[in-house]
Structures are given as structure tokens and as C-alpha cells.
């Protein structure tokens, strides 16, 4: 209540101090609202929300019936409807294990749980090893697939990225050189060519007769690609660790492995959490590219659904829905990463003041 009043006072104060600015702002806002009015009419007042086929869409407004009818497909792809509890359970487990990342008492275990997440997800979703009716990976789709690819990409590329970052700072020239080559190679090519390679060329690299699931191939491509970016993020964290930390660890007679595990990495990783979240946001958006190699993520599902002859002409509604979904996820994550950044900056200021 008090905060509200204070904010109001501030507004009044501003309006008194800069009347022209306040006036132009008001006029400008009105203009913007006026210009956006047709959009509002199209999207809400003239739009159709109820019904089950295109005959329900009358008038010039948006046809949200299309999105409603295909909602399940947009979320789960062609996953069998009677097994929707499996993706839901997977997402719940995923959220839980990501939440566990912040329970510091668990130590390294929480990272292991996070890295194991893709395998748990696969067990539940595919199901044959748990005695459930198997669901082939080509039936996974929609938002589910977007989440699978992005979370797997991050979970597996995190340890890979740490190794690469350490390799890039290694004293051994060969290891350093190989790490640099690997990182720059992947960072220099577009994700599309990586996906092409994964879907077209990877089978040639396998021994004859060995077949690799298409989703797995795409995941391998995405993971290798992301790990190069992850390595650079982690490297930034490693570089920010003061030399004194290494010296202190050496003074305590820690081996180099212990120094890394107990002193350097915990500090460095904490510092790069915002960077990791930003990499995740980038990957989350980039997963939409898998539609170019014929997989049906959220965007791919929307694109496919809008070429259905029964719903021709309503693709814009579908794209708006996909855009809104992506936006909600990415915006929430970017806010979160911003808060983390502020917290980190704050705590380092605090620490400086203490010493």
C-alpha cells in the first residue's frame, strides 16, 4: 500500500516537473493504443474461440478454434493420447531435478541427477524397458520435443563443455590445441548444417548395419554444437577466478584434480550460471530449426497443422500461438538469469565490503 502510494507520488512529481514530457507521453500512448485497436479486435473481440471445425470461424476475426483443436498436438506431437501422463510425468521429474540443482547440500549429486535426466526421460517416454507400451521417437513432437532437445542439449553439453574449457586451459599443448580446434570448428558453422550432417551423414560414419535413431542423431549434433558454446561460457568463469585461489590450494597441498574439483570449479560454475541460462535460451529458440530436417517440434507441428486442407488459411493463429509459447519460456528464463546476475554482483560487492 505504501509502495503503491510512493509510486503514485513519483508519477505526479514527474508530471509536475516535466509537463511537456508527460503530455507527449500521454498522447503517444493514446496513439499507440489507437493503432493497435484493429489488432485487438482481430485477436479478441471479433475472434472465434468455440467450435470444432472451420465452419465455426465466421467474421473477420482470428480463428482460435484451430489452435484449440490442435492444442494437444502442439504440446505432444503424435504421442498417443491415452499415454499423455508419461510426458507430463517426465516434465514433472524434469522440473523437480532442475529445482534440485539449487539444493546445495546435495553437492555433485545434483549435477549427476541433471545429467541423468535425458536417460530418465527416455525410459519413461519410450517405455519398453519399463514394460510400458513402446512409443517410437518419431511420434514425439510439439512442445515436448522442443523441451527434450533443449534440456538434453544443455544437460549433456554441460559436462562436455566443462571438459573442453579445462582442455582449452590445459598446460599440455596437444590437449589445448585439440580443444581449441573442436570449439572453433563447431562455433564456426551454422546449426542447420550440423543438423543436416546429423540427419544425412552420421549414418555413413557408423559401422555398416548399425542404425541410430533419427532423434538420437539430432541430439548428438545439437549436443556437440552446444558444448562448444558451453565451453566458452565456462572458460569465462574459469578466467575470472583469482590466481590466489590456485596458490592457496597449492599451499594446502591439494593435487591439481582436487584444486579443480574443490576450489576452482565450484566458484567458476556459480559465476557462469547466468551464462548457462542464456545459452539455454539460445538453444531453446534454436531447436525450432529441427523442422528443417523434418522433425516436428512446436513450430514444426504448427506448420504441419496449418497445411491441413481443413484448416487452410489459419496459419497466422498457429504461428502466434507458437510465438507466445516460445516468448513465455524465454522471457521467464531471461528474467531469472537477470536476477541471478544481480544477485551474484550484489554478493561479490558484499564480500568486498566485508574484507
Amino acid at each position, binding site marked *: 500500500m505504501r509502495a503503491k502510494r510512493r509510486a503514485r507520488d513519483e508519477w505526479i512529481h514527474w508530471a509536475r516537473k516535466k509537463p511537456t514530457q508527460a503530455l507527449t507521453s500521454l498522447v503517444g500512448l493514446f496513439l499507440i493504443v489507437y493503432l493497435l485497436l484493429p489488432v485487438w479486435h482481430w485477436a479478441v473481440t471479433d475472434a472465434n474461440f468455440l467450435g470444432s471445425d472451420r465452419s465455426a470461424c465466421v467474421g473477420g476475426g482470428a480463428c482460435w478454434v484451430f489452435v484449440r483443436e490442435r492444442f494437444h498436438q502442439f504440446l505432444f506431437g*503424435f504421442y498417443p493420447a491415452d499415454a499423455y501422463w508419461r510426458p507430463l510425468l517426465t516434465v514433472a521429474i524434469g522440473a523437480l531435478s532442475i529445482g534440485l540443482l539449487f539444493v546445495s547440500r546435495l553437492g555433485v549429486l545434483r549435477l549427476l541427477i541433471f545429467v541423468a535426466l535425458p536417460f530418465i526421460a*527416455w525410459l519413461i517416454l*519410450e517405455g*519398453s*524397458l519399463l514394460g510400458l507400451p*513402446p512409443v*517410437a*521417437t*518419431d511420434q514425439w513432437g510439439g512442445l515436448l520435443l522442443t523441451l527434450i532437445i533443449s534440456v538434453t542439449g544443455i544437460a549433456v553439453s554441460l559436462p562436455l563443455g566443462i571438459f573442453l574449457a579445462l582442455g582449452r586451459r590445459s598446460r599440455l599443448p596437444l590437449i589445448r590445441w585439440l580443444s581449441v580446434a573442436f570449439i572453433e570448428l563447431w562455433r564456426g558453422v551454422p546449426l542447420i548444417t550440423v543438423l543436416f550432417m546429423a*540427419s*544425412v*551423414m552420421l*549414418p*555413413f560414419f*557408423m*559401422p*555398416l*548395419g*548399425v*542404425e*541410430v*535413431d*533419427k532423434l*538420437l*542423431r539430432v541430439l*548428438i549434433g545439437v549436443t556437440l554444437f552446444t558444448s562448444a558454446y558451453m565451453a566458452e561460457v565456462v572458460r569465462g568463469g574459469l578466467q575470472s577466478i583469482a590466481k590466489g585461489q590456485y596458490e592457496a590450494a597449492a599451499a594446502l597441498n591439494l593435487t591439481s584434480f582436487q584444486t579443480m574439483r574443490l576450489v576452482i570449479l565450484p566458484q567458476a560454475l556459480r559465476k557462469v550460471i547466468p551464462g548457462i541460462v542464456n545459452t539455454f535460451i539460445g538453444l531453446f529458440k534454436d531447436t525450432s530449426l529441427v523442422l*528443417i*530436417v*523434418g522433425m516436428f517440434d512446436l513450430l514444426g507441428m504448427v506448420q504441419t497443422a496449418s*497445411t491441413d*486442407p481443413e484448416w*487452410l*488459411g489459419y496459419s497466422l493463429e498457429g504461428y502466434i500461438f507458437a510465438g507466445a509459447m516460445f516468448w513465455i519460456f524465454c522471457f521467464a528464463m531471461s528474467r531469472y538469469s537477470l536476477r541471478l546476475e544481480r544477485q551474484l554482483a550484489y554478493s561479490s560487492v558484499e564480500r568486498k565490503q566485508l574484507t
Partner: protein
Amino acid sequence: MKSFWLGMCGLLSFSSLSVARADTLGEVKKRGFLKCGVSQGLAGFSAPDKGGLWQGIDVDLCRAVAAAVLGDATKVKYSPLSAKERLTALQSGEIDVLSRNTTWTFQRDTQLGVDFAGVIYYDGQGFMVPKKLGVKAAKELGGASVCVQLGTTTELNLADFFRSQNLTYKLVTFEKNDEVVAAYDAGRCDVISADRSGLFADRSAKLKKPDDHVILPEIISKEPLGPVVRHGDNRWGDIVRWSLYALLEAEELKVDSKNIEANKKSNNPAIRRLLGVEGELGKNLGLNTNWAASIIQQVGNYQQIFDRNLGKDSPLKIERGQNALWNAGGLHYPMPFR
């Protein structure tokens, strides 16, 4: 899902460096289902129906091969492929047979590591234009923008056609057939060029106002469409080829899915051989003696397949024309079963 783990092992260890001999038949039998590459949606050839079941003449070939090899036409996993991906998917072993309105050409047969197992549909490339343009013949298309699907023989034939006519044109390509049709419908191009059967299918199924468009009479290319297998596995190639011939032979002998039981008692030796009542043709292919019988029982003969997917019982209503049997003025000529 064994392939998932196999792949993991193969990837992580690279342990098995030896090259196994290609034995598609053995792999399919062990796996228990056939992996068949189809289109991403072309009515009459391969397209999922409302219930998500694949339908079409190309799909029926997959089912025929599954019936011959596994005795069950439903044991097929369909991989929808874009024109661009299809041959690499076959080369790399992602699918066992490609049945995706693919044109048999010299280049593909000799250069790409694939073999064509026959022709299931004789097609030819044509043009569709909006009626209001008033175009009556392909010769009048100079300067037009032409929409085609990327990575097809259509693209190459088009270049040849306009060059031979000394005409210019603007090429607009898209990866998916749906995108080509949508672009044409929106006016991005004046003409759409594709195999004529595909044009008929697209006009009736995908255009907002089918009656406003006309398919020009010219046929500018030969497009023998057929199933494709990997080069080097002759046994598997034989199986696909003779499964196709079995469909045609059944039509020639007037055996279909309805009268097959009665025909098993027929005293025509050709029918007896085809249905496995006499002789052991199936053995030579590594299959059961009743392989052709299960094709005809579960999938039908060529006429039944044609009628329900493309012909008189389908919305496309395409004439048999060149696709009639040789003894009815067409080009289909099954090799003798003996």
C-alpha cells in the same frame, strides 16, 4: 528401440570396425517390420488419412512387400521424407525401401548407390495455371514464374524444357510439396509444375478453389515412378521387384483379394504357381511359398490398388491410360512367373 542402444554403443566405442554384408531381408525379418520411405503427403501416392493411417499407391507397395516378407501387411513403419532427403535416407540405411513417387533415371541408378526395382506408375511432367491467365499451351509460358519442389527431376526437366523452347522463366523452389502449392495459391508464381498425377491430386485436395485452375495438356517428360532399394543387395532388390510384378500379374490373371480363395482351386497353372499352390517360387526369394498370395489377400491386385487410390473409387479419378496392362494398351508388363 534396440537401435537406440546399438547406436550408442557404435558411437561410443567404434569397436566394430568390420563391415558386415548387406542382408536387408535378414534384418527386416529379425526386426519384425519393414521401414519404408514415403512422401510427406501426396494424395493418391502416400498421405496420412484423418486417422493418421498412411494411404496411397506407394504405401500399398510398402504393404505388399511387408506382406510378402513378414506375412503381415501392417508391419510397416513409414518415414515421411522430403524429396531432398529421400535418396540419402535410403543410402544411409534409414529405410529398407523407398516408395515415394521417385523417377527412375540413369544418373540415380548409376551414381547414387541405389537400384530401381520397377515402375509402379508411368507419369509425365505437366503444368497447372490459373484459368484467368488464359494460357492454353505450355509454349505460352515464356517469362512466367514457375513454382516447383526442390530436389526433384521436375526441376531438371523444367530447365530442359524452357531451354529447348528458347523461353525464359523464373524458378521458385520450395522444399515441401505443401509449400509449393500454398505459394502458387497465394500468387507467388504463375505456374506450378509437377508430375501430372500430383497436379490432379493437389488441385482437388489443396487449392482453395480447384475449379479456377487448369492443367495444361502437354507432357514434357517421362516420369517412370517406382520403388528404390540400395545397390548391392540383389536378393532384396528381387523381392521388391517381384512383389510389384505379383500385383500386376494378379491383375493380368484376374485374381484379386475377393476371389483369391476360389482361385486357389483354379486349374490354371499360372495362377497356381503365383499363389504358391504349385511349385516353390517363394523359396527362390527366401520367402514362404504363399508370399504372393498374402500380398493379394491383404493388399489386392494392381487394379484394386489403382482404383481405390487414384482411379474411379478415389477423388482424383485419374484414367488408367499408360498405366493399363500391356494387353489393354498400357505399359505395365509383368515378367513371366515361372
